[in-house]
């Protein structure tokens, strides 16, 4: 009995691993098309001491999205959604830059302190969302809509500059100290862009927490049936709250990274429309937006896929404003590729169907 059960279990595990197969496949597809289109796509060279090339660009630019996707995955797993991440990022960026101050030789506030406070600001926003959703039972999309709008206003308010003797908000503040640019650029003597490390760090920590603690299981439970979850002693409200908190945190990180890239706080544009890409990333990772089961790595791959798509479309000389058309088509292709229904059709096509009619899944 036992050994064969083991076998079955391993088989099942293998299957669940397969879940990641399609997202990866999709990513590869995008990349392969590239070689055909732009042969130089995979060239990586070292220019003035740092790695250089499309691939590096993709990973580098995907970093923020990856970081966001981590938080978004959790939120979505609880059956919610957070459309405020972009704005929250802007808030964090504003806090960070405002604190750092705009001088060439010294920060008004030590860098790590101001970054820390920026992250706190992000978590505060996350807490706000979490409170609305978990305690007041407000529908996630609407609850987060509030910061989605207010966030940028707050960010503008924070990024004030002294003009003609009085502080005028709604400015674009610039950080001049080179050392701040390292976060979004390169650490001295390192050939890989810093954001990549940050993204990697976030993913690893998240993965560790989810696999070493029961958080992952709890989140799934809450997402599947929070009532049942409550009866088996899981504090659904707490879990949901935490997920939004984490999401706010990741949003803040990505915001700070972006602001360091442009070493300024552009309240109107930092993280603009990022929420959509983040959600898309989660979905491309083979996750259901209705909550429950989730795959963190899937989301990460999804994020990279999106950036790869964008970068390569640019490389193919498609203009920014027409890009969405192609993006849309590819997205539809990828998700249909992952759809149960398609698999079923193929199966039916090959031989009589084995699984229950997907009507009931």
């Amino acid at each position, binding site marked *: 009995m036992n050994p064969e059960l083991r076998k079955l279990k391993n088989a099942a595990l293998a299957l669940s691993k397969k879940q990641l197969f399609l997202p990866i496949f999709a990513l590869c597809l995008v990349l392969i098309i590239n070689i055909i289109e732009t042969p130089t796509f995979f060239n990586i060279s070292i*220019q*003035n001491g*740092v790695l*250089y090339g*499309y691939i590096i*660009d993709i990973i580098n*630019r995907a970093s923020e999205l990856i970081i966001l996707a981590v938080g978004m995955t959790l939120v979505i797993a609880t059956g919610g959604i957070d459309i405020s991440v972009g704005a929250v990022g802007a808030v964090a960026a504003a806090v960070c830059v405002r604190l750092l101050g705009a001088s060439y030789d010294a920060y008004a506030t030590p860098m790590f302190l101001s970054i820390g406070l920026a992250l706190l600001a992000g978590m505060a926003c996350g807490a706000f969302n979490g409170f609305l959703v978990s305690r007041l039972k407000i529908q996630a999309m609407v609850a987060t809509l509030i910061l989605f709008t207010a966030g940028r206003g707050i960010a*503008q308010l924070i990024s004030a500059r002294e*003009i*003609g003797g009085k502080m*005028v908000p*709604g*400015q*674009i503040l*610039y950080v001049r100290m080179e050392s701040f640019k390292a976060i979004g650029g390169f650490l001295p003597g390192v050939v890989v862009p810093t954001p990549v490390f940050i993204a990697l760090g976030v993913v690893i920590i998240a993965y560790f927490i989810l696999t070493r603690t029961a958080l992952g299981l709890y989140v799934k439970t809450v997402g599947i049936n929070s009532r049942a979850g409550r009866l088996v002693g899981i504090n659904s409200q707490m879990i949901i709250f935490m997920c939004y908190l984490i999401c706010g945190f990741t949003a803040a990180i990505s915001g700070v990274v*972006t602001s360091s*890239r*442009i070493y*300024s706080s*552009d309240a*109107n*544009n*930092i993280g603009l429309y990022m929420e959509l890409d983040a959600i898309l990333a989660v979905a491309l990772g083979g996750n259901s937006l209705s909550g429950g089961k989730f795959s963190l790595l899937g989301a990460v791959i999804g994020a990279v896929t999106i950036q790869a798509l964008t970068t390569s479309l*640019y*490389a193919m*000389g498609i*203009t*920014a*404003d027409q890009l969405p058309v192609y993006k849309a088509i590819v997205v539809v292709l990828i998700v249909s590729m992952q759809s149960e229904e398609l698999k079923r059709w193929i199966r039916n096509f090959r031989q009589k169907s084995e699984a229950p009619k997907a009507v009931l899944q």
Partner: protein
Amino acid sequence: GGQDEAAAGAEDDLIVVGYAQVGAESDWRTANTESFKSTFVEENGYRLIFDDAQQKQQNQIKAIRNFIQQDVDYIVVAPVVETGWETVLSEAKAAGIPVILSDRMMDVSDDSLYTAWVGGNFLKEGQDGVKWLNDYVKKNGLASQELNIVLLQGTIGSSAQVGRTQGILAGIDANPKFKLLAKQTGEFTQAKGQEVMESFLKAYPDIDVVFAENDNMAFGAIDAIKAVGKQPGKDIIIISFDAVHEAFNRMIAGEINCSVECNPLHGPRVAEIIQKLERGEKVDKIQYVVEEVFDTSNAKEILPTRMY
């Protein structure tokens, strides 16, 4: 009803002006708003009703309708876009309220719908940019050699983009030595500007000149250029527009060679027009604000005098 008249009576002396602003999407815009807010104050005999459209035309249309209900004396609009004002302006006309445009033009079937327009001449700005480049190459004796040019456009369709692109392209065509390699929109933002410039640099290793249709995109471009180990302002000439505060710092640092001003201080000019209209005088429809060209040579002394 009665209350209206009462309210109106109380402040008969004040001229009520409704200003439908685009938003606060750039320093330029904020400066423009400030200029209006500081001009139309009670001391000068005005009451300003300010409305911020959050970069959305439909909001602006709503605002104008609201101004009509608030029964203002003048409506000032800085249109988000040039098009689509037929319906609401005809309502304003029916209510007999004069409409003055600031910054962007309006494209309507009959231009009696608005009284006057105040703003910068984007076409001229574009031409000034190229003109500066021509002088520059002459001065530095580069006139003989070919110059490879790329153009970072603004948000497609915005009149700043349309006008400047037009001016720049015309100028480039005029000079056989100038060669336009590529143009793409950076949507007026630093991040996009950087991203687009990066792809330019990959595609074309030998770029000599960058036109950026606003300063922010230029800042992005500068980073992209630095990233490939070239020197902005030396290896690659950078010409940008707007001449915001930060742009001067960059010119002083020698990273931007030239920035063509786009003057946001429309308030006083509009006030003039209103005064004329109050006196029943005739005003001419198109009124440009004065705009200059700044470059590394004069940036340092000008900077302290800048209001934005």
